[in-house]
């Protein structure tokens, strides 16, 4: 009975499985059965810190995959929306005196949550303003506009939003002393508590995205990716659906940015530069753009690889810094896009299906033309 139900609803089953796995990981961290710490199991490679990061970036990636994989629009500046969320939260909660917000409000437990909401509305609004006129055009104009947007926002964060001095964003050093989140009197910190917060939000976003993909909007998006003209002829409002995808991805990115700010308790401009946006694209390519489940997978692979490279590269290359890992990113991106543009996860499952004698079905837009 249960098996049949799970087979009928594979996404629900996967969601439940993932939640169960994450619960077990969290339980191990808190209870430490048999004296085992969470990081002991993975030999110190994956810590709870890494898991929280994977959760946060998964939220960004779910939105980005909706935009790139389903609506077929490249975003080379997703870090701008991610940064907007982070800076909105940081400025509103740590620099509230500048904005003339009374201490009583700024110190209350609900204020940071309101700041998160504010960041999401701002990012979504900006995406709508930019997206509406540009997505009316055909071709990959969004790639160019988002690229400009990403670099613009990085410079704004770095240059104190263009205002003289550096009292708002703190220039290169960023903003410190961002408070942790809490609900009423209940602190959502230490990290073992925050882990559950982040992954709950991430799973909600995943579920939302899965529902979007399997709804009327999702079908419309896939139709657009397949052929804009044909879907237009079938009565799909192309620009409207593309803007929807862009706004959803911006809102998700901003939400993740806010969670990141409260996780680090500080923000600095570095993670939101062009390289940051590129890293998101690499993660998306690795996990498979047209796959919602590829999002956490891609983030996990890249973040864990990063840890391995960081320790491994030092032994191979004397004096190697963190920057050297970008060679690897570049080569990985090229190889994946040349040989398996549908991403590792989808490619592997397609390969397996082929082995079992079924015809591989590629997501629309990524299949090769003859």
């Amino acid at each position: 009975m249960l098996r049949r139900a799970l087979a009928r609803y594979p996404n629900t089953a996967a969601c439940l499985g993932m939640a169960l796995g994450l619960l077990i990981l969290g339980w191990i961290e808190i209870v430490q059965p048999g004296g085992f710490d969470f990081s002991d199991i993975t030999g110190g490679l994956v810590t709870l810190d890494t898991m929280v990061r994977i959760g946060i970036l998964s939220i960004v990636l779910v939105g980005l995959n909706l935009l790139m994989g389903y609506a077929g629009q490249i975003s080379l500046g997703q870090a701008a929306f991610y940064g907007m969320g982070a800076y909105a939260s940081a400025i509103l909660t740590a620099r509230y005196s500048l904005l003339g917000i009374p201490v009583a409000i700024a110190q209350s437990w609900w204020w940071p949550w309101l700041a998160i909401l504010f960041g999401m509305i701002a990012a979504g609004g900006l995406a709508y303003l930019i997206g509406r006129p540009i997505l009316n055009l055909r071709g990959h104009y969004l790639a160019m506009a988002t690229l400009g947007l990403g670099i613009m926002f990085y410079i704004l964060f770095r240059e104190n939003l263009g205002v003289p001095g550096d009292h708002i964003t703190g220039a290169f050093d960023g903003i410190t002393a961002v408070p942790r989140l809490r609900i009423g009197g209940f602190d959502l910190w230490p990290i073992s508590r925050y882990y559950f917060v982040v992954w709950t939000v991430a799973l909600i976003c995943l579920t939302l995205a899965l529902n979007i993909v399997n709804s009327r909007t999702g079908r419309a998006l896939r139709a657009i990716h397949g052929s804009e003209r044909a879907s237009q002829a079938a009565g799909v409002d192309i620009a409207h659906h593309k803007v929807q995808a862009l706004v959803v991805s911006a809102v998700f990115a901003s939400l993740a940015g806010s969670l990141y700010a409260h996780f680090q308790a500080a923000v600095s401009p570095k993670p939101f530069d062009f390289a940051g946006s590129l890293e998101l694209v690499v993660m998306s390519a690795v996990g498979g753009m047209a796959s919602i489940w590829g999002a956490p997978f891609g983030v996990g692979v890249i973040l864990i690889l990063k840890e391995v490279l960081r320790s491994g590269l030092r032994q191979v290359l004397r004096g190697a810094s963190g920057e050297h890992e970008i060679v690897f990113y570049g080569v990985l991106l090229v190889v994946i896009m040349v040989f398996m543009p549908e991403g590792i996860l989808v490619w592997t499952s397609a390969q397996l299906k082929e082995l079992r004698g079924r015809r591989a079905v590629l997501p629309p837009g990524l299949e090769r033309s003859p």
Partner: protein
Amino acid sequence: MSFTALRSPRAWLGPLSVLALIAVVFFLGERMNFGPQQYMQLILDGLRGGTIYALIAMGFVTVFNVTGIINFAQGAFVMLGAMLAVSIYDSSLPLMPAAKLVVAVIGGIAGTTLIGMLLERLTIYPARHSSPLTLIIITVGAYISMQGLALIAWGAKPYVLPAFTTLDIADKTFRIGGVVLKAQSLWIWGTTALVLVGLAYFFERTLTGKALRACAINKRGARLMGISVNRMSLLAFALAAALGAIGGIVVAPTTRPTYDMGLVLGLKGFVAAIIGGLVSSPGAVIGGLLLGILENLAAGVTRSGMKDIYSFIVLILVLLYRPQGILRAGRKPVEAG
């Protein structure tokens, strides 16, 4: 432009925002007590930077026209040209400094061109049947790889290529009515003018150039005429790499080349190409010069750290109001791919 076009608000918004921008520049300049000399200096320096953007933009246009790809690896060619030239110049070749510089320039351009061709064969050619989205991401990956390899080869420190006139770090300068002009600027403008004449000759008068143009106009038609589109794609990348390398080498004495110089230069060249409409070489040149002047003026009257932001504001404004570029009258933008 007809009168009906003038009546639509969209037609007015573009020129109006340009006027507003100029007014803001003058207002901010007034507060800093700028005279005509300061403006001239800013414009002159802007023209120097703009010429480099123009060279890079032409690389974007060439590749886009022939293959329909926006080649984000273009910036890497700029960096490679400069870095290879510096390496050859700093090597222990038993030559006079002047002769060594010539060898360095030729070596830098030739080396970069080879790398450009290799790049096309290794990454674009195997994936030539993929969607444009995939191809664009591949060029992004190629850029990251090349920048990373440059970091391993040359490290993160800035290098020095001497000025062409003095063969020294200190360049010869001319003073004309209080405005300072570096001799290297003349080299940059002279080289670009030569390249433009050479390209015009190549595209108009040679069979290969005409074949390249045929590919840009209609790929299938060109193939039916017996033109190998694959070979033209290779040639377009070689040409783009050479253009980028030339830009990188002539600009090297005025900046300190580093492994990551290609990113910002490449992106601004791309903005210049968009201003020009992405399909036209003269448009790319005009776009580059305009962008150089505009960003230098804007940066001159505000925070200097904000310099890089203006080109991207321009990019978004152009995409919003004139996606077909500033030259063409039509409303229909180009289609990528």
